[in-house]
């Protein structure tokens, strides 16, 4: 699964996710990537989220919307909200990760797997590309 979140110069955020699913899937199985609120969500009032991982668990938890809701209503940072929701997802048996950005230019990610291919860049910031 691949994805991107961005904040533009006008302060707006967006999210996108794309995937082939999981090897050997049957019966028209669909994971979280195309489910708005599970694998993908964007709201200028909170943040933008793209997720990758064991989709069934991300759907049950409503991961992307849950993170945005915690930012919006509980005032958590992106990192706090991401870590909390990923911990709850892990407790259900799910694994994977999320990338996040917010309308003030915050950047965060959270994952509970040994690695996650990821990167970020920002105006005036250092580019980061990492796997583990």
């Amino acid at each position: 699964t691949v994805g991107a979140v961005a904040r533009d110069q006008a302060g707006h955020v967006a999210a996108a996710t794309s995937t082939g699913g999981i090897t050997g899937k049957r019966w028209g199985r669909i994971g979280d990537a195309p489910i708005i609120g599970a694998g993908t969500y964007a709201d200028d009032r909170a943040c933008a989220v793209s997720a990758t991982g064991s989709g069934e668990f991300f759907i049950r938890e409503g991961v992307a919307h849950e993170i945005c809701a915690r930012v919006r209503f509980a005032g958590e940072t992106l990192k706090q909200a991401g870590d909390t929701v990923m911990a709850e997802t892990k407790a259900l048996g799910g694994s994977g990760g999320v990338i996040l950005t917010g309308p003030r230019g915050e950047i965060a990610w959270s994952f509970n797997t040994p690695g996650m291919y990821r990167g970020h860049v920002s105006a005036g910031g250092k580019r980061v590309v990492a796997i583990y």
Partner: protein
Amino acid sequence: SDWTLVIHGGAGVIERERMTPEREAAARAGLNAALDAGQKVLSGGGTALDAVEAAVKVLEDDPNFNAGRGAVYTYDGTNELDAAIMDGRTRAAGAVAGVTRTRHPVSLARKVMEDSPHVFLGGKGADQFSAERGLEQVDPAWFGTPERKRQLDELKAKDVSWFDVDMKYG
């Protein structure tokens, strides 16, 4: 920051002991290319929506990642692609599932968002919508790669579940 871009790209190997220098270099090159595409949009004053689409399209074209070309195979040996996009300004959203002929599924998701009254289209109907709206179509064989076929064959040979972590390349 004035603008930000964050990406992820699943390439199928997350355990250090299974990673090779060649695989890691290819994955890093793909991630950098996606960052380049999104950065070009954002640094030029473009929208976050255009930036995330641009970045994801690069990863969809890169056979190292499980999306678009290089997607994993279904049990029946086909490639079925899913994508979504969302605009934080308005919370407009578009999504597609099980599409088989659109080169860039993320662009089809955006088309659903911007050029239909719906949020989520699936299967044959989504393929039909894509063709009718003039998105780039490809033969389904475009998406497959020998490595992904090998992974499917390995999964079938071992007769394990998708949820066996060692076999879950998606």
